[in-house]
């Protein structure tokens, strides 16, 4: 099977967000594979191991993204592709990314494309379905189980806590929800092998795309941090009195009850 994974490099979840000149300051921040994309990579590897074929991990990013792609290779992916937009795209959005990915994928005859259901930084969840729409293939989002039998696919999907069992077929794009699997850690031999695995780097030119073709359709006009929360009140005294006071405060001061 010809399997592709869409991967994004994101801020580590524990990073503190600092603004610098109206932008998120990335200096010194730790970057990781978007956690939902790790589920996608793991699932791709399991599908390959069960059905044969090849897993290619693709990312639209900059040269720093090579590190996360190497990690994906160390987990067991066969190939990686970096579409480096550093010189061509200044302010891309989800349209931009989806358009580039779809342009890359359109002649690849992918059987299965996997991605995370959302990235923890921008958190739009748009790119996967947009790519599927551009490639004109079906998609299922927030999946927690994937079973493949020939070209028939049964997918379990998380819908706000309920589960839907969906019958569909390859070619298909799915986006991973937590619970799909337990992503493996790269092994030491895996890390050694990853250094020799192919990692292709492309630019828009290589996809016959012009900057105008991928121009964003939204614009960020301001980024700001939420107002710092004042320290809350920890109540004191007899427990019964604390509870009474809390209910009183919620009713008269916070007015939420």
């Amino acid at each position, binding site marked *: 099977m010809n399997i592709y994974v869409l991967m994004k490099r994101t801020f580590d979840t524990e990073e503190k967000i600092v603004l610098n000149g109206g932008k*998120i300051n990335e200096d010194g921040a730790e970057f990781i594979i978007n956690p939902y994309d790790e589920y996608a990579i793991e699932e791709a590897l399991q599908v390959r191991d069960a059905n044969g074929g090849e897993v290619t991990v693709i990312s639209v990013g900059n040269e720093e993204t090579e590190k996360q792609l190497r990690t994906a290779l160390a987990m067991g992916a066969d190939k990686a592709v970096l579409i480096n937009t550093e010189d061509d795209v200044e302010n891309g959005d989800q349209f931009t990314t989806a358009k580039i990915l779809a342009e890359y994928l359109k002649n690849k005859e992918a059987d299965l494309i996997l991605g995370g259901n959302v990235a923890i930084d921008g958190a739009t969840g748009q790119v996967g379905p947009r790519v599927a729409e551009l490639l004109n293939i079906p998609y299922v989002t927030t999946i927690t189980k994937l079973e493949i039998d020939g070209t028939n696919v049964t997918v379990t999907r998380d819908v706000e*806590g309920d589960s839907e069992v969906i019958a569909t077929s390859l070619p298909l794009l799915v986006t991973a929800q937590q619970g799909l699997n337990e992503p493996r850690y790269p092994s030491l031999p895996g890390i050694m092998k990853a250094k020799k695995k192919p990692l292709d780097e492309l630019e828009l030119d290589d996809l016959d795309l012009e900057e105008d073709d991928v121009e964003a359709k939204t614009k*960020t006009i*301001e*980024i700001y941090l*939420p107002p710092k929360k004042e320290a809350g009140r920890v109540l004191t005294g007899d427990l019964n009195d604390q509870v009474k006071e809390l209910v009183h405060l919620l009713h008269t001061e916070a007015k939420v009850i």
Partner: protein
Amino acid sequence: MSRKVLVLGEARDGSLRNVSFEAIAAAKTIAEGGEVVGVLVGKAVSALGAELVHYGADRVVVVEDEKLTQYTSDGFAQALLAVIDQEKPAGLVLGHTSLGKDLSPRIAGRLSSGLISDATAVEVAGGNIVFTRPIYSGKAFEKKIVTDGLIFATVRPNNITPLAKEESKTGEVSSLSVEIKDLRAVIKEVVRKATEGVDLSEAKVVISGGRGVKSEEGFAPLKELAQVLGGAVGASRGACDADYCDYSLQIGQTGKVVTPDLYIACGISGAIQHLAGMSNSKVIVAINKDPEANIFKVADYGIVGDLFEVVPLLTEEFKKLKVHS
């Protein structure tokens, strides 16, 4: 400049979800005096049209078909695209629900349009329709505009105030016939787990339990409190990992994001991944035995104590309040 804006109304168990009314309020702002048209897609949904009008839609277009009994992206996309083709709107709003998240990028992809997902506010500023949305799990916010295509957004439940309901308001409910073609992905079975009681993502009150709840039975006092307050029960990842409850209740970076009026965290330490799912709640109460627990840093009110003592006392006290008011 006034413009026409469509709103997809979303039904669950035969009634409209609150987020649909919130989406109408957002659409009113975007329309700047123009027409707001409700859209209903389903098997037998036209009876819900009047309620969209009561909440501010000027009229409603309904697409009904046997094949639309359950949501599928193929079926609903065909229906909604047909309405868009007929109405030629300048704006479109959906709830940022499971359905909205799944469907909106496809519509945006087809129309080659911008899309602003998970908006928590919308305003007219400097001649633009400006949306606010959380990024980095609510650790920062961005203001965004659409520069090409429809003014298209999904709105996060519980953040935009719906317009007051006017039961006397009337508007046309018309139907559009759409031939729903092949569905490439069909639902074979739905396993319901989460939906006893109030929907977590739309609840005004959430009572949430962490590892301190200690067992599946330990959730009982939380459920009782939730019932008294008309709220929903949630959980931290720790409680889910320990098998005290189903993952469908999980709130956090992985899991649901909730912004209720009142969030009561019981026996939750307050790991950053949990805070990502609830820190934008309007009022946060923390109940924890450990006075150093991180959750107290984001709480508006805190009680240091054993949740198994505090929660039942709270339930009794709220019951008294309900009787008095």
